[in-house]
């Protein structure tokens, strides 16, 4: 069990915490959290999974996108206590450096990133799309990524990367 008292912030005396158990990338994690702790901050500071980025804290930018019970959400607008008993998937759960997920490969092949800040959120939004719709049109990809801002690429190569991944994932299924 990890205590988040020191790791996330100093909890003032008398502020109650809650014990929550969240399955993160397939692994059960039990932590004590202050109710106001955001899920994004639990993931980054508490669990040290810093692949999930925080950009705006107001549901605009999508950098903090994770999958919550398989659905894309912005983890800056959910409290960590609300994830108790649920499954969370972050970019760390997608693949490894030696064995990339096809979506990660797609971003590499199609130059789908420059600075990389938006990339984890983009990839998880794409994963949610491809799990529901393995053969999306370009418009459907753009619609699925509409909640994720990128300030570098102009989006063209991100869309190409997702379509590349869709092709590869369909080939693997075939």
């Amino acid at each position: 069990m990890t205590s988040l008292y020191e790791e996330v912030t100093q909890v003032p005396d008398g502020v109650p915490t809650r014990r929550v158990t969240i399955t993160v990338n397939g692994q059960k994690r039990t932590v004590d959290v202050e109710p106001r702790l955001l899920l994004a901050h639990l993931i980054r500071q508490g669990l040290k999974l810093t692949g999930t980025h925080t950009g705006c804290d107001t549901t605009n930018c999508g950098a903090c996108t994770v999958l919550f019970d398989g659905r894309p959400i912005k983890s800056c607008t959910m409290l960590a206590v609300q994830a108790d008993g649920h499954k969370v998937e972050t970019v760390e759960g997608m693949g490894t450096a030696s064995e990339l997920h096809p979506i990660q490969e797609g971003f590499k092949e199609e130059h789908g990133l420059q600075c990389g800040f938006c990339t984890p959120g983009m990839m998880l939004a794409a994963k949610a799309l491809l799990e529901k719709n393995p053969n999306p049109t370009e418009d459907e990809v753009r619609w699925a990524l509409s909640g994720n801002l990128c300030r570098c690429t102009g989006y063209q190569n991100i869309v190409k990367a997702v379509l590349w991944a869709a092709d590869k994932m369909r080939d693997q299924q075939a």
Partner: protein
Amino acid sequence: MKPPVFEYRDPRSLDEALGLLNEYGDDSSILAGGQSLIPLLNLRLARPDYVIDINKVPGLDTIEVLPGCVRVGALTRIRRLERDPKIRAVAPALSDAFQNIAHPQIRSRTTIGGNISHADPSSELPGVLAAYDGRVQLTSSSGSRWVSWSDFFVTVFTTTRESNELLTAVEFPTDQNFSYEFEEIARRPGDYPLAGVCAGISLDGSQVRAARLSAIAIADRPIRMTAAESALVGVDISNAAVRQAASQAAAAEINPMDDEHGSAAFRRGLVSTLVKRTLDRLAGVPS
């Protein structure tokens, strides 16, 4: 830590939730999907003493397609509503409006009750509720009452919900042979609209029996455009001049404000265009 300190309560039943609202009332905020409240907490624009998280209250995430109405429980998420084939079958404009609410990640969390009780005049659903002549159910420890949309929305972020009440259901009437169309204009997909229109007409052959036109992001609350509605009653919808006249009447009767997203004149033009487009579609004419 972004949000201010608050006491967190997560009631497991409606009675428990209503009891907490009775006790804490104005000192509390209700947390449903959190897509408005949590940004407000993160910015510390909201500083409630208590946050009452209703996500564990059972029985509030219902979708019922009944004779004469679609009734949706307050905790039903937009992601589910936008994909619901039963709603699409009886109220396709409603499904279109759901798909226009923000982004996929936000629709995964946003609830219909939270969206409507937040009463953001730029949000789609309050305006769609107005066009459908819908109503909301408010429940407190002492019982439930149904309130029509026009008695519910007061001004920006303000409704007639009492602090001990919870919005528990939303009802969109589907009777009277009304057909609806919804369209909005936003700078980017998923943004709040610069303007939106929901138009409904009831026809006798091609003659309009009744019309309901609402505008979104135009005033401090959703509005019906009654001059444009009157201009349509009794006329032949297949006549393009009639649809044009209604769109001009709509532009003339609204009073949009200038803001950083667009001038009043620009918004007036958008509403006129949207009224024309939605009426064209209702008349079966491609815009």
